[in-house]
């Protein structure tokens, strides 16, 4: 069984938000809801200042705090490591939103358009009424991954089987693949570089590895 994960090279990310918008469009998330976004972080004091861009989103933890607090089992872990939400079971209690240390979860209670005049045609075509009043978050583009696998494609190699944030990244900073496969691109990056995972002290054992300068 594969264990899907990502490696993000912070030496290369420029915070352009192409992954952010590609994710929004692929998953048709409503205004102000981001399953993937890039934080623009400044540290230090003038003139000794550092600026870093850090792609954020669900870390698909091995020990996800959101999973632990979910009272309805709506949040579940797939054998391949993807943490997903069963909208039919979610009651919108938002415990998971509070529990997630990565601020990766969202909830909206009404359908919203980007325009005050109402939903525009693409918003209507891609509407997700099942996502109203429930927690939502990045699912590693699970439908793309599964559909790609069904077609014999290789996630992380074939764009059509790879999360859209990775396939859209214009600095080639994001990589996706099987953490259990030593020959996968993610395993090679981890083997060849120093990587960190966010808030490792929490023991979440996330599937997102960051290469830091």
């Amino acid at each position, binding site marked *: 069984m594969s264990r899907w994960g990502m490696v993000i*090279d912070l*030496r*290369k*990310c*420029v*915070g*352009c*938000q*192409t992954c*952010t*918008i*590609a994710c*929004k*469009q*692929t998953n048709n998330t409503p*205004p*102000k809801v*981001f399953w993937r*976004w*890039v*934080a*623009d972080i*400044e540290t*230090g*004091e*003038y*003139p000794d*200042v*550092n*600026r*870093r*861009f850090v792609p954020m989103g669900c870390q698909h933890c091995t020990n996800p705090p959101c999973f632990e607090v979910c009272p309805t089992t709506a949040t579940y872990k797939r054998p391949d490591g993807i943490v997903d939400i069963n909208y039919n079971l979610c009651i919108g209690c938002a415990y998971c939103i509070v529990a997630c240390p990565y601020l990766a979860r969202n909830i909206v209670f009404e359908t919203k358009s*980007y*325009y005050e*005049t*109402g939903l*525009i*045609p*693409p918003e*209507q*075509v*891609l509407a997700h009424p099942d996502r109203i009043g429930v927690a939502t978050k990045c699912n590693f583009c699970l439908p793309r991954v599964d559909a790609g696998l069904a077609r014999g494609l290789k996630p992380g190699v074939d*764009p*059509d089987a790879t999360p*859209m944030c990775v*396939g*859209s*990244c*214009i*600095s*080639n*900073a994001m990589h996706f693949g099987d953490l259990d496969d030593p020959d996968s691109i993610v395993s090679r990056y981890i083997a060849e570089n120093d990587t960190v995972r966010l808030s490792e002290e929490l023991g979440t054992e996330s599937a997102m590895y960051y290469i830091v*300068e």
Partner: protein
Amino acid sequence: MSTTKVAEYCYQCVAGPDLLNVCVEDGVATRVEPNWKFGDIHPAAGRVCVKAYGLIQKTYNPFRVKKPMVRTNPVKDRDADPMWKEVTWDEALDLIAQKLLAVRAKGVRDESGYPRLAVTFGSGGIAPAYTGALPAFLSTWGPVDFGIGSGQGVKCYHSEHLYGEFWHRAFTVQSDTPRTNYLISFGNNNDASGGVLGVWRHAQARERGLKRVQFEPHLSVTGAHAQWVPVKPKTDAAVMYALLYTILHEHDWRKECDVAFLRDMTNSPYLIAPNGLYLRDETMRKPLMWDETENRARPFDEKFTPAMSGTYITSGITIGADQELTNFENVQVATSFQKLIEHVREYTPEWAEKISGAPAATIRQVAREFLQNAQVGATIEIEDKTYPYRPVAILLGKTVTNGWGGYEALWGRTMLAVLVGALEVPGGTIGTTVRLNRPGHDRLASARPGPDGFMDQPLNPTDKENWVAKPKIRNAYQTLVPLANNSPWSAALGPAHLPWLFMKEPPENWPRPTTPEVWIIYRTNPAISHWDSETVTEQMAKFPFIAAFAYTPDETNWYADVLLPEATDLESYQLYRIGGTKYIEQYWKHQGYALRQPAVEPPVDCLDLTDIGTELAKRMGLLNEYIAVLNKGGGTGIALKGKDFDYTLPNDVAPTREEIWDRACRAATRELSGGAEEHDLAWFKENGAFFVPFPEKDWFLHGAMVQKGLRYELPYQERIWRAGLELGNRLHEQGIEWWDTQLHEYSPLPAWKDFPDIWGRIAEAFDKNPDDYDLWLLTSRSMQYSWGSNVGIPVLADVAKNVKGHFGVMLNAQMAKRAGINEGDAVWIESPLKRVKGHAIVREGLRPDVAVTIQQFGHWVTPVAKDLNMPNLNQLSPLHLALTDATGSGADVVRVKIYKANGKDGK
């Protein structure tokens, strides 16, 4: 649900085009994807940037202009509603044709000699990727004023275009990023402005170890991955001069610089007479060099090893302005390189530190690392040819290249590359396109031999017989700017703000500034994008007839007489040249053509610009001429008849857009493949793009220069200096003295001047005290917004807010604390011209004497954008001749004071 993918290109910023697919589900465009199919051809694996994804909302924006409309309120004023009335396309086009016919009946030029028809295309150089066959119609017209500006000269890399093309056929200048190891940047923000290829290549370069040093007043997106050296605005040339000093006076240039390159490929050995001109031999009038073996001066094109430095006693003549000959007998002359050494002698790092704030130790560190990384002497094989390998480059930003100090910065940058032979060679600083020389698609071929061993430079004439004394268009580029040349692009590269300024304040001894009788505008909003936007709108309100292609209502088409709903990116046809070498980082190992095509039924009643061109030609009785232009490739850039093919259109039948582009597709593929392949419109609609290989060695001018035996015209600028002197003579003969300050820019070796003070003192022109304005207000590029009408796309606002600086004015934390300003506070930003309100964004990453706004906002009509409440530097920036340099450019720099809106000075 049925899903199809439609291939398109995105050219919303000048760093494209790039390729994409639009997913269409049940007849609705829903998503954008990279066109991964071309991943092995497109240098960034077929990907597109954040803006391309906005094309979906751009298509379905409910605020689009939905029908042609005409103004019913004759009063044109910011506070007067135009009271639009819907009309049919026939009515709208008839109205435009009627106005044009009336102009034609009167004569295409007015009493001042200016064209009565003016056309302004916005968005830098990208409009031609969207205008279809409309330019073919304009070609049939005769004189058109394309030089009424929308912000170019300030918003583009204006002076780099002119000097870059003069020195090394580099309308845009780049690093050979795939091979560069050390990059010095002065405000170049390529991770925001370099497009997909720029971001991709620089990221890969960082992964392999490229080091970048970023001299910049604020810590930009690009500076984030660099050694950031905060510098005071407009002092970049001082730092560059100190780098030149350090290399020439603190290092041993004989050992560390590329002496062979300097000697054989520049004018370094040319002898300079006491009057500052090249010393020439009396008979052939060729520049002389010094032969140390024979101890005599000899013409530059004889075979010998000339002296690089030193002074010598010899004789010869000089040719000055207006061919003035001067004889010199046994006088002391120096090599051009010796002059350079002396010229930079006073520019020590300590001197530069006082001016710029860049530490002297850092300047020395950068000079040392630059020399170490240059690998002088190294070579590399590219496509079986051996080239010098110099993996160091220098890039400049927009505000560095533009306005006063631009010439000095550009010369300093190019000289740094020249000293180590890192100009136009692998790893070094290269050009990527030409626009002022021909052929426009082949910059290597454009390097033709000219006088004195240099490239031919078709400068606008300054001699008595040929100087264009009476401007042919309102910005007078042929009259005032020799370096602008006279190519089809030159009109837009003249001093394009002068028409607005002169309409307001007519200059002395100059044809009376007139308004155009018909002004056609496309993808442009000068009421927002031009400096002193209030003056601009006051003037355009006087224009008698404005026809505006309109995406949504905006601040400029508010003053229009007829609005034509714009067919946007996904609603019209165009076949466009792609790959090879083009703007910015667009250098590929392939070249070809890509198609833009209707992906969905437009949700508004718009018309393809190709059809509009045809309809106007019909109505004007110019159909034959229009088709003749199309057949020659005018407007589309694709000639329909070639050596072994003929797809010309019959000249008596109005063609459909499909007929025009089908023939263009066939002709383009036949021409590009040497006749081996032919693909029609249907093939392009299915496949998206056609490519053939492009030689990588053609990324570099070096091979052509060597093959043609040409030298780069550096470091000495005799030709530029002479052109300036002659221009001064001509202007003074006409009694024109208001351009005298600009004439001082022409010099053989540009010296540092107190450039920041020019912006400081401008307050006096408004009877204000310069000391009251203690901050520099600058702008910075937003990749998310620029350009293509994206300010009104809400999803772009949604994602852009994740990037620091959007939706406010960035202030240094120490400065903000002193002023009692907190994050999010409403503040007034006040220049000598005006004040505007914004919200404070408090950061550590900028100098305490600097404030920065992103992009250009301040909208008051454009839907969505007008609710962003963003300050706009353009509203604060004076439109003033004193802020115009000799190339006709200005810079996005304004002295301001900033205070809390609810403080004691604000309300």
